[in-house]
């Protein structure tokens, strides 16, 4: 790293205005500091003259915790309490606020918020600390080695002063190139169980502002009337009935003819006016297949030779080994389309300023996506486009689309107006369920051969489904040799040392718009791998935990050891093998997004009269748990999300149209569905890895394994309620 360039030109003016210390990085990654908001870089830390410290959070907050976690890193390094730091969301700037794992692209996803911010935000905080200490050293005439900052107070011997005292002087200093980061033994906030979320109070008292809560002066509400099936084209409309609705303004066919925008003075008027609108559609290019047909195509692909030999295995040799095996276990799995259904329906608001700038108010998961799309749509340079990131009411992947779908839709609804009034695009729940982007349907077919000792000889694994990444801007990043990694992640790259693994993949034709859904490919690969492990262990007459551990036995392989450790911890904490009378347990373990999670599900009842989920015990290794309680919350939520959908949810199509409408037929997990969840965190000195997604993959297979242990019913086609299992 290099030291930033001199800023003496504006130091004088900044000091006069009331100094603000800004610490961040330049586009080349070097730490930089400045003394006023006229700085030519965007900061990670802002310290006002009165000592107010603000963390500039580059990741959006959808509940997963960065509005707490990122300020924690800065507070830790400076030496503040959590009450002494505020947060605000960063502006859209892919040069400074990019996700370090995504390249020059600002965005949240893949459970990377903490993993990519861990060093960056600590360095910014440490640089601010050293600058404040250097300023105090000069002021007090003492050596820096004798100065510390604790709970926002700068201390040296008998001298002490709040950091506010040194902001002006510190803002005149150069940023240190490589500030000293605190040793983990010095951590007071990182890993501290008592650090609370920064956003709890405002979310419990109605003050939290989501994009849905934006009310700009003179705004219109726009809703889009879309075709029943994807691919329909709007030719024209009759709004004579809409005109009867008080508050209706007008309607316009979107420039891409994907629908008709209905404008109204308020949301209720927009809902009614859209309902009343008659649209003439050209459906000649629309999807017409039923989901049964799409499923049949996937199943047929499983029986044919795969397009891709993913792990370059000798398929013939593996097949021959299985043919000659003592026992063969074969199973075919099907995973339906799923909607994300975040609690806050999609929405965003666009306005044009007097200067002709475009401002987007959005729960922006990937600001760079709409930012780039808007340069095209509005024919503006990037600096004329501004994105204000609001709190997001959930996402589970839905707010991050490679084509910035709803932000583009809002822009198209805005460009056809005279732009004198802001336009707030609102989706209803029906729009969300019926017009969405879905977890693609996938099929797996697995054949496993066992030797006479009950060991695996070969594992032939066929996967078929619609690629998420192909045809998107992420293709170059995620598709290699034709293989979309997100279709098969968690199988051949599993830490299990499975002999004779042969993995084939076939992409099936586009069925609908598909998208990553909390834990992406792991949603179906973990289910397949971990229920197969149980079936194979059962056939071998071996205990499911012991059987798995025998494929994680390489003591020189940390990947295997970490996976084995969470498996053992979950089994121990759940009292594996000692379920109370009338209950059965199922276990699953899976690595995803750099983290390891094992879960034991305990069930009672029976599949005919109703299965009751009595308890889920989770063990997770996510490296250093920056906020252990947020980690626990993410595991609890990830488990609920995984289990809720396999219990009863699917999106189906009839003649290309989605059959489901709203929560009554896409039923969310409810409070009574899971009686208890306990989460245990493995102590670690490794850098933090993901927590938003890793709780989800093992939850559903652990449930399936528990039901199988209880009743002998193994569910390989989802959702469970459609395939022989009812829930109490």
């Amino acid at each position, binding site marked *: 790293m290099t030291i930033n360039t001199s800023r003496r030109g504006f130091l004088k003016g900044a000091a006069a205005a009331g100094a603000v210390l800004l610490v961040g990085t330049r586009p080349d990654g070097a730490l930089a500091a400045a003394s006023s908001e006229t700085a030519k870089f965007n900061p990670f830390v802002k310290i006002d003259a009165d000592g107010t410290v603000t963390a500039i959070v580059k990741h959006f*907050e*959808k*509940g*997963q915790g960065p509005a707490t976690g990122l300020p924690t890193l800065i507070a830790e390094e400076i030496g503040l309490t959590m009450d002494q730091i505020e947060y605000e969301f960063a502006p859209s700037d892919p040069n400074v606020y990019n996700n370090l794992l995504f390249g020059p692209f600002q965005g949240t996803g893949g459970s990377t918020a903490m993993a990519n911010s861990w060093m960056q935000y600590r360095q910014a905080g440490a640089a601010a600390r050293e600058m404040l200490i250097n300023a105090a050293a000069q002021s007090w005439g003492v050596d820096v080695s004798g100065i510390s900052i604790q709970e926002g107070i700068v201390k040296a011997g008998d001298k002490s002063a709040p950091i506010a005292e040194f902001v002006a002087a510190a803002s005149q200093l150069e940023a240190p190139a490589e500030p000293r980061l605190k040793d983990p033994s010095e951590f007071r906030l990182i890993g501290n169980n008592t650090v*609370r*979320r920064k*956003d*709890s*109070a*405002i*979310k*419990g*008292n*109605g*003050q*939290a502002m*989501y994009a*849905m*809560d934006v*009310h700009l002066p003179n705004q219109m509400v726009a809703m889009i009337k879309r075709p029943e099936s994807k691919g329909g084209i709007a030719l024209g409309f009759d709004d004579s009935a809409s005109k009867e609705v*008080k508050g209706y303004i007008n309607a316009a066919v979107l420039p891409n003819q994907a629908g008709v925008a209905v404008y109204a003075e*308020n*949301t*209720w008027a927009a*809902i009614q006016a859209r309902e009343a609108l008659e649209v003439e559609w050209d459906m000649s290019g629309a999807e017409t297949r039923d989901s049964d047909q799409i499923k049949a195509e996937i199943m047929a692909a499983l029986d044919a030779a795969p397009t891709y030999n993913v792990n370059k295995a000798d398929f013939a040799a593996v097949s021959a080994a299985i043919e000659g095996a003592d026992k063969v276990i074969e199973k075919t799995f099907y995973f339906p389309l799923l909607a994300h*259904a*975040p*609690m*806050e*329906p999609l929405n965003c608001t666009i306005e044009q300023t007097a200067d002709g700038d475009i401002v987007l108010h959005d729960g922006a998961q990937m600001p760079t996506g709409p930012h780039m799309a808007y340069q095209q749509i509005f024919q503006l340079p990037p600096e004329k486009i501004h994105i204000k990131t609001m*709190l*997001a*009411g*959930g*996402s*589970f992947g839905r707010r991050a689309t490679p084509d910035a779908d709803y932000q583009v839709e809002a822009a198209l609804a805005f460009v056809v107006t005279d732009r004198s009034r802001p336009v707030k695009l609102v989706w209803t*729940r*029906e729009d969300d369920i019926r017009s969405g982007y879905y977890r693609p349907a996938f099929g797996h077919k697995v054949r496993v051969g066992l030797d006479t000792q009950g060991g695996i000889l070969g594992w032939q694994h066929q996967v078929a489904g619609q690629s998420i990444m192909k045809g998107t801007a992420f293709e170059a990043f995620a598709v290699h040799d034709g293989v979309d990694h997100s279709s098969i992640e968690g199988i051949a790259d599993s830490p299990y040392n499975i002999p004779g693994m042969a993995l084939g993949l076939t992409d099936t034709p586009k069925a609908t718009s598909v998208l990553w859904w909390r834990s992406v490919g792991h949603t179906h690969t973990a289910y397949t791998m971990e229920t197969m492990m149980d079936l194979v262990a059962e056939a071998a007459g071996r205990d499911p935990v012991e059987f798995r551990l025998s494929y994680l036995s390489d003591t020189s392989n940390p990947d295997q050891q970490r996976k084995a450790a969470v498996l053992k911890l979950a089994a121990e904490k759940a009292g594996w093998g000692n379920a109370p009378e009338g209950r059965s347990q199922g276990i699953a373990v899976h690595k995803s997004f750099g983290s390891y999670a094992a879960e034991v599900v305990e069930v009672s009842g029976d599949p005919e009269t109703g299965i009751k989920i009595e308890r889920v015990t989770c063990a997770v290794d996510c490296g250093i748990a920056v906020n252990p*309680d*947020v980690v626990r*919350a*993410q595991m*609890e*939520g990830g*488990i*609920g*999300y995984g289990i*809720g959908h396999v219990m009863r949810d699917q999106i189906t199509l009839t003649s290309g149209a989605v059959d489901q409408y*709203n*929560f*009554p037929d896409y039923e*969310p*997990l*409810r*409070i*009574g*569905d*899971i*009686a208890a*969840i306990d989460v245990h965190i493995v102590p670690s000195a490794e850098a933090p890895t993901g927590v938003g997604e890793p709780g989800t993959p093992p939850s559903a297979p652990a449930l399936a394994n528990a039901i199988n242990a209880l009743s002998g019913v193994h569910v390989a086609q989802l959702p469970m309620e459609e395939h022989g299992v009812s829930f109490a």
Partner: protein
Amino acid sequence: MSLTLKLNGKTHEVDAEAGTPLLWVIRDELKLTGTKFGCGVASCGACTVHMNGEPVRSCQTYIEDVEDAEITTIEAVGEDRIGAAVQQAWVELDVVQCGYCQSGQVMSAVGLLSENPKPSVEEIDDYMSGNACRCATYQRIRAGIQRASVILEA
């Protein structure tokens, strides 16, 4: 039509057509955005408000039916001791994740504790079953209600 709405202890003159859900009057007319739109069909509970102290789904409560009622929203429920206890418990336990459903969860939790100060787990699960949380914060909602019950007993 013009009508008078008694909300959070104040009287508001509002102009809305008959059949307008109370939700949209609260959000779009009165600009009180703590009450959330989640489904519009009384299936998620995000829009829960109190009508004469009882939780109702404001997306399925029509404006002409509330003229003589006392409406309380999330913005004012903390002025009541039960509301304050629930909000305190929610912060102590960090119940929220995305938070979008939590106004409705708090309003329902206050409704439950108002009629049943010490609910059992079964009673909590039964009463709260209409409030969906896509983040699945249910463990903590349950614990939050139990904690609020303890706070209120003190």
